[in-house]
């Protein structure tokens, strides 16, 4: 199946701004799904609120556009009810880790087989450029006119500490790498977190003098390095990319099947 067959093309052109990284991430994701040859009816895409969340309307899967921050909580109900479905949850940085932070760490703790994608552009785009918990210190935003004093979460460290069994990071610049990582994340049995650095030239780039989309994409390239690479060794302040965690541990739905089997046996004995 071609990538376009996974899209609801009648809703194009999409609503993302020119130069936004989200469309590129959607492309990487669809290529991963295509390469895995997944059936459209076996995928449920659940999203919250924000620019990133609109992704679910564009894909021809079962799509659930929920409430701000609540995508993972809704997805948990879907997955536990029908464990054979591939549940993919794209989220923005504010969606996933501010209002949705509690659901994020608990989904990771349960190790429920959901693929969570954090499309991190370090800003609230849809509401017009407020800082997020992933912005970090020294950033200009409409709600930080004197620059931010708030520290940021590191998604990789947070997801790892919370118990996610697959944790990775890539960027909208590294499209093939993103596709490869997303493929592994979807195939992984357990809670997978993929952070993909995205760019928001409209609200972040302009205010923080990062230039247009092209120069912001350049930054994805120059500010990051693959884990284990010489570049990272030489310059440890670079943001590491790659797969940080890939472990095999009990998955929630599989464990619950065991509970059901045990409870049924107890009842009849």
């Amino acid at each position: 199946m071609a990538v376009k067959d996974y899209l609801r093309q009648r809703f194009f052109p999409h609503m993302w701004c020119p130069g936004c990284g989200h469309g590129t991430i959607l492309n990487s994701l669809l290529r991963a799904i295509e390469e895995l040859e997944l059936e459209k009816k076996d995928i449920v895409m659940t999203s919250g609120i924000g620019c990133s969340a609109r992704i679910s309307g564009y894909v021809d899967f079962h799509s659930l556009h929920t409430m701000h921050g609540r995508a993972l909580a809704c997805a948990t109900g879907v997955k536990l009810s029908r464990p054979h479905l591939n549940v993919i949850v794209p989220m923005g940085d504010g969606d996933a880790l501010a209002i949705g932070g509690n659901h994020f760490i608990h989904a990771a703790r349960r190790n429920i087989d959901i693929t969570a994608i954090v499309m991190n552009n370090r800003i609230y785009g849809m509401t017009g450029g407020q800082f997020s918990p992933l912005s970090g210190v020294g950033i200009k935003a409409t709600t930080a006119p004197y620059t931010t004093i708030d520290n940021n979460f590191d998604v990789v460290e947070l997801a790892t500490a919370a118990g996610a069994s697959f944790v990775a990071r890539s960027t909208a610049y590294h499209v093939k790498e993103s596709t490869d990582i997303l493929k592994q994340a979807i195939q992984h049995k357990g809670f997978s977190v993929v952070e993909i650095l995205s760019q928001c030239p409209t609200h972040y780039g302009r205010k923080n003098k990062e230039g247009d989309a092209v120069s912001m994409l350049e930054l994805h390239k120059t500010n990051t390095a693959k884990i284990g690479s010489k570049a990272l060794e030489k310059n440890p302040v670079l943001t590491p990319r790659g797969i940080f965690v890939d472990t095999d541990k009990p998955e929630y739905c599989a464990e619950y099947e065991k509970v059901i089997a045990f409870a049924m046996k107890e009842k009849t004995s």
Partner: protein
Amino acid sequence: MKNKIRFVQGNEACVEGAMYAGIDFFAGYPITPSTEIMEHLATRLPESGGRFIQMEDEIASMCAVVGASLTGRKAMTATSGPGFSLKQEAIGYACMTEVPCVIANVQRGGPSTGNPTHVSQGDINQARWGTHGDHSIIALTASNHQDVFQITVDAFNLAETYRTPVILLLDEAVGHMREKLIIPEEGELEVVNRLRTSLGRDVDYHPYLPREDGRLPMSDFGDEHRFNVTGLFHDMWGFPSANPKVISGLLRHLVDKIENNVQSITRYKEHYLEGAEYIMISYGSSARSAIHLAKARRERGEKMGVLELQSLWPFPRELVREKCEGAKAVLVVEMNMGQVLAQVKAAVRKPGRVFLGNRIDGKLITPSDIKTYFRVIQGRGV
């Protein structure tokens, strides 16, 4: 009749009703005085292949219920005051997306943490207007365990029939009290199952296009028909729309599908109401005291009766007006500051004859409390 007679708490009667109705998914978060519902379902659901999950908070529980229902499951959550507040966001989402589900609220005293282990009926209006925006809602209640069982089955049935969240407004006294429950045989009570579309895979399915009878057949996530579900105003395919006609059409549909069916949704019981000059309107545990008093007064020849409401929303205005027509006085017996009183006053022809008989101190209102109110109404002194 083996194992069909139980001596249980009201919360367990609710669980039995839910099991009878075919619940196969529960998500919840512990909160007094509703916790027994989730505790019992944690045991019961996996025994029959259902799913139970304890979520990280009430918000997540309500969200998980919505997700589960969309895959075709009969899903429920249970909570009390503070948790009910947290669930309102996703209850509104379920209204907007027309996802069948049941929310039990075993009421305790509020606002805020309030009075966790004592009885109150203070969430009547929150059940109606707790979530933001125009919408309509169904809320049911019951005063004894047999009725809790029946009304829980009804809650699931109405949720499926109208594709809507249904609120089960129990209270601490009914929830924690123990009394006899006879579990009906299979088939004895009606159970409404999910209405699914009969359209084949190659036919366009419209998840939000009502049939002629007003019902909307569903398709489960994971089945052939792929569609969009969103909390935004949406068209008949489920896709966001800012078209004024689509917006007003959907809002009217969400309200009308319930308000136009008040008669079929209304549940009530009459106790000694025939020819009653003094009528008590009550519900939940406070109705038990009202019924007790009416019985005693009837034995003395006084014409006193009780209209026990079992559906509070949509409020049965016509019923209340009709039943109260000939009454000298109507006393609304409830454990709040007059939430149902306001509805009754708005419903009857002579609102000046409607009085409030309440108790708001965490104690169950007693027949003698109600007697005192009648002494005042009847001008016999306190």
